[in-house]
């Protein structure tokens, strides 16, 4: 059974003008298998957050359907199996880190003793043990993001939805986030990662989907996406500097060029979005 199944999903938001609406998600169909790290990429306004909201039961689709672990996200029992890290730390500044994690644990119906033990372990694991009893108002952005992981994991969910986990986090923090996500995969969890940090997505995701204007432009493994449109490219390794200069000369004579390194996900992403935008005029 797939962990997440999205079928022909559409979401329209009404505009103030009578009878008009804007389509945030347009006929999106996706299947994410269990224990997969799936990267959902797209520029701002591409429909990533709306898709996430629908997957969490926070918004209702205008058309189509989605299932998480075989259940509609409207079902509380489905949401109990999902961990959610929001794109900004929408937490209570008057609570301490420990109180916040315990509060969410109580909402998940976890027995108090177990919740206390898990909260302690998670705060320790995410390097917040020393700050656990401090109010969130005194936490840095990086600490709040790590706390976000702790609260998302308190119910030991099978599926994690991470919405921009590296937004506003410094490169060291972003690298830590990458490690956390890989660690989740080793624990058998499925991760849906929405991110702008393409290099990180490229390095940690098994599958990637690229959204623009609510439409899915491409989907597949990172390797497949990187090889698309690569027919006119050659990857040459292990040549001497003399041989390389000869190759470069030959390429130049033939009207081509030689560049260091292969195609990156950044390039794939930008090419796809740019051609989609050109197509729309």
């Amino acid at each position: 059974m797939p962990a997440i199944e999205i079928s022909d999903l559409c979401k329209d938001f009404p505009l103030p003008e009578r009878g008009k609406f804007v389509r945030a998600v347009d006929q999106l169909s996706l299947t994410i298998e269990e224990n997969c790290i799936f990267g959902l990429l797209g520029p701002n306004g591409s429909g990533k957050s709306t898709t996430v909201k629908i997957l969490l039961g926070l918004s209702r689709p205008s058309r189509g359907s989605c299932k998480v672990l075989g259940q509609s996200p409207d079902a509380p029992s489905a949401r109990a199996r999902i961990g959610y890290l929001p794109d900004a730390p929408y937490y209570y500044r008057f609570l301490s880190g420990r109180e916040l994690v315990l509060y969410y644990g109580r909402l998940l119906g976890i027995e108090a003793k177990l919740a206390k033990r898990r909260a302690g372990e998670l705060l320790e694991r995410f390097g917040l043990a020393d700050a656990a009893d401090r109010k969130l108002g005194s936490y840095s952005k990086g600490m709040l993001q790590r706390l976000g992981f702790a609260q998302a994991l308190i119910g030991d969910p099978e599926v994690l939805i991470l919405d921009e986990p590296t937004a506003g986090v410094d490169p060291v923090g972003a690298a830590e986030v990458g490690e956390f996500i890989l660690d989740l995969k080793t624990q058998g969890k499925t991760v849906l990662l929405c991110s702008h940090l393409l290099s990180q997505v490229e390095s940690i995701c098994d599958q990637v989907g690229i959204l623009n204007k609510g439409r899915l432009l491409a989907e597949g493994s990172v390797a497949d996406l990187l090889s698309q449109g690569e027919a006119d490219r050659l990857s040459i390794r292990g040549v001497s500097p003399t041989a390389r200069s000869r190759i470069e000369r030959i390429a130049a004579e033939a009207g081509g060029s030689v560049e260091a390194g292969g195609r990156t996900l950044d390039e794939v992403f930008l090419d796809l979005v740019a051609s989609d935008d050109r197509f729309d005029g």
Partner: protein
Amino acid sequence: MIDSMAERIGRSFSRIGAIAGNTYREAIRMRLFLLLALTGVASLAVGLFFQEFNLGSNELSFIADFGFGGMTLLGSIVAVVVTVQLLFGEIEHRSIMPLLAKPVSRGEFVLGKVLGAWLTICSFIAALTIALVTALWIRETQILAQDSEAFGGGRAVSYAGVLIFACLQCMRLAILASISAFFAAYATSSIFAIFMGFFVWIIGQLHPVISDQLAHSTGSISDLLLRLVTWLTPDMRLFDLGADVVGGPGIAGAVAAKLLLYAALYAAFYTALAAFALGKREL
């Protein structure tokens, strides 16, 4: 099956309790409670200040009226503002997002928030009641020390009546809190929700005037609309029983019970409307 249903209800109550507790904790930690406590102490100070004046046997009624008026007026302001702040603030600051991503329904969320706000309001009323009872008791004792026959050989104040009055105010404010929660769940700005909360409160206070108007009803559309308004809004004046407590007959148990039921029905109706409005809202 029955067990499973009982378990589900139990878990639902646990979630509502957690949200109510967190809401109350927010009110305490966000200094709202400090404001409430200060108001209570100020009220006590004003009550005791009247010791300096010789107002005769009416003095206790004056202090009681002052205290009851404070409960009614300040309590209403607190009920509207605190409820809107605690519920709309959660939507505005988007802390509602990770919360509703947990197995929490929007109805449970609204009920938890209303209960948490109501706990805060009850704490405020409790602070004012303690201040009022203290002021009344000190002054009554002083008057009796000067003239043991001042109140015909007994005491003038029904302290149980004061407590019943305070409980009825809590119920009255539960209605106002649930009405404010409805507007907070529907509105896109907290100012609008606060304005509408006060608007309904004023209509509730004007019920006797509207009833007079309807007594001479001609069956016009405006009269029908007015009648609809009286059904939809509670009659807040029913809870103004302060005159019965000091020097009056006291508050009858049957009257108090009827008012409790009346308040519970209106509070449940508006809380359900708030849950419906939030359910339809895009977050």
